[in-house]
């Protein structure tokens, strides 16, 4: 059995109108083989039910063009096309002294504020920098002082350790107390 082909009709309305009267196409019925009965006259349904449905449909709100807000041109409106109402077409020139002065005053106030804020910012930054510098200096000084202290203490230690019998950090000088303590006595030379 050959597979049944489904034919597609591109133009439904043109399907039965081949243009030639009495041609095969014009005589042929619907191609799917189902013949629908053509209705003639009023539909056979009861009168009471049908009008109700019609009424319901009529109740649907019909929107006017304005209400929908669809742009007149259904695309992006070019700049020149949109015309604001009540506005002068073209450029607005400023040539009178009053308006020039007003604009100048506004611009100058703006600039003044800008400069002022810049100055304040610069001053604050300067203060911060100064504070940091002072802090760093103080730290440096402290470090130096500590270093000097350590150096001094080391020097003192050395000088103390040279003295006999001086205990440095709990360790007695070996030279002072050891077996060869006598040797530690300073040699003296005297001329009679």
């Amino acid at each position: 059995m050959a597979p049944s082909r489904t034919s597609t009709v591109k133009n439904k309305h043109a399907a039965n109108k081949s243009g030639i009267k009495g041609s095969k196409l014009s005589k042929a019925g619907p191609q799917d083989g189902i013949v629908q009965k053509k209705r003639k006259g009023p539909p056979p349904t009861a009168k009471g039910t049908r009008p109700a449905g019609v009424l319901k449909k009529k109740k649907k709100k019909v929107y006017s063009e304005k209400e929908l807000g669809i742009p007149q041109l259904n695309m992006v409106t070019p700049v020149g096309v949109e015309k604001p109402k009540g506005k002068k077409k073209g450029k607005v020139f400023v040539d009178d002294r009053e308006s020039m002065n007003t604009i100048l005053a506004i611009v100058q106030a703006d600039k003044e504020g800008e400069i002022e804020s810049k100055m304040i910012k610069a001053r604050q930054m300067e203060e911060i920098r100064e504070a940091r510098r002072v802090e760093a200096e103080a730290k440096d000084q402290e470090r130096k002082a500590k270093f000097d202290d350590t150096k001094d203490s080391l020097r003192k230690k050395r000088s103390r350790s040279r003295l006999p019998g001086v205990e440095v950090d709990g360790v007695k000088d070996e030279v002072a107390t050891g077996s060869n303590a006598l040797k530690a006595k300073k040699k003296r030379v005297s001329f009679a």
Partner: protein
Amino acid sequence: MRALTEEETKTLFAKLANYTGSSLKNLIAPLSDSPDADRYVFRVNKDRVYYVLLSISNLATSIQRERLLSLGTCLGKFTKTGKFRLHITALPILAEHARYKIWVKPNGEMPFLYGGNVVKAHVGRWSEDCPEHQGVVVYSMNDTPLGFGVTARSTAESRRLDPTGVVCFRQADCGEFLRDEDTLFSG
């Protein structure tokens, strides 16, 4: 030739106010107290802005736009993006109303006039309390305006700068009268 629009006026004044102080309003003040006194106005021809006497600009309306080369003082031009660029021809007006100034030593004049920035070693004097990125007018030591620029650092910061550090970025200098001779007034 036409007057400036509001937007253009704002842009122009904002640029001028970078360099000048509050005396800028004298630019558009009438020359005398009489009601029909002459005054200076701004006019645009093509994209260039001219600062010109109203009476002269009225006379100039009799000349075709294309044929009109220049009138009054050319302040600068509007770029295609709507910004305003000051030309060196605006220097006399800026110098007259300058707010911040830098005086350059004789050994720094030539480097500046050849298009260089101003380095600290070349600065003879400068206005106190000048913030950074502020318009300044550059003078020689005998008070001749040489050009204008934008400060690279505030005065306080530039004090700590080394001698080769840039103090002011050049915007325009008198050397442009020769260097840009063919494009300065037309084209």
